[in-house]
């Protein structure tokens, strides 16, 4: 049993009518704090992989936890809190990304060079690596939405294909087929750009 589940099971025992209101509020706050400390970093990484902006990703994480706060009465019904939270933040970031399409695209290369780890590389190599990453991400953006989403979720090592299916709201076989198509498309695109160069 994880720390969050332990706290929530305790909270469900506390949530009795005989227990004073203040004690219940304290229990709720403790449970939420446990969720935040356990999953905030994971949610941030999921949000950043889509939005690629640290402040936007942090906003998305905060919004996700505010939604949890609003629907905490249904928390006892949630089977896997980690997947549930990732699904919430995933929907938030997809919605934000859809809305942000009307805005002009920002240059990601400098941000990537700053953010992505590049140990043992000099400045020139780091710049080249950042450019390569930007090119890959530009190709990812050209993928169809369904394939792109599955491919991005598959990069998270802590998510199994069953969990990816739960987050994306599709079947496991769909996850596999979309992943296969996405990988083929990406390989084609990258091969094509190399041959053009």
């Amino acid at each position: 049993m994880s720390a969050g589940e332990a706290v929530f099971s305790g909270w469900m025992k506390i949530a009795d009518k005989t227990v004073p209101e203040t004690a219940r509020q304290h229990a709720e706050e403790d449970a939420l704090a446990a969720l935040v400390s356990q999953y905030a970093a994971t949610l941030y990484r999921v949000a950043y992989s889509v939005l690629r902006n640290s402040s936007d990703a942090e906003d998305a994480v905060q919004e996700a936890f505010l939604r949890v706060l609003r629907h905490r009465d249904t928390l006892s019904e949630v089977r896997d809190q980690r997947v549930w939270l990732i699904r919430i933040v995933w929907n938030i970031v997809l919605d934000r990304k859809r809305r942000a399409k009307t805005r002009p695209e920002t240059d990601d290369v400098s941000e990537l060079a700053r953010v992505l780890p590049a140990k043992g590389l000099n400045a020139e190599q780091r710049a080249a690596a950042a450019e390569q990453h930007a090119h890959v991400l530009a190709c990812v953006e050209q993928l169809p939405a369904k394939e792109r989403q599955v491919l991005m979720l598959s990069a998270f090592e802590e998510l199994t294909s069953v969990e990816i299916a739960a987050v994306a709201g599709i079947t496991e076989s769909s996850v596999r087929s979309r992943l296969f198509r996405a990988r083929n498309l990406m390989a084609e695109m990258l091969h094509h750009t190399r041959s053009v160069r």
Partner: protein
Amino acid sequence: MNREQGTGSREQGAGNREQAAASSSDFELTLRLLARLSAPEGLEERVEASLRAAPRATTSPARILRWPVALENSWVRAAAAAAILAVMLGGGWGVYSLVQPVRPLQPARAVAAPPHLATPGGGFSNAGAMRTPHTLNGPVVAPQSKPEAKPAAHSSGKALHRAQPTAASEDGPAAIPGRYDK
């Protein structure tokens, strides 16, 4: 020759597969690097602060009245609610009865209404009017005269047997001379 072509195409295929594998490992490396990024420092504290600052109106179910501690018992609450309701209704009725203007009694006006012509269907009446369509005089058919009485020979059974036409002779027995003379 063919074998050389086959080996060549196989090598090319293997090369393509290697390139594809290399490119797939490239892009998957980029995505994994993104997925492994560490969260910024102080993220949890900021999220918790935002949760604390969020309105707590939804922590408990919506209420119309917040009861004092003395009214914890539900019966006492119901009695208090009934008393409040009675006071409000009584006060409202008192104000209403005070504000009502006193009208002098007036005789009701008699309104002459036309007599109602009831119709069986309940719809509009025709007010006693009758429709007389202007139609042409139709042909007068004379009553048919009674059919004439049949000759007496038809009534006897023997004659009837004789009178029956046969397929062989449409003209009747008179057309075959001497047949019935025996």
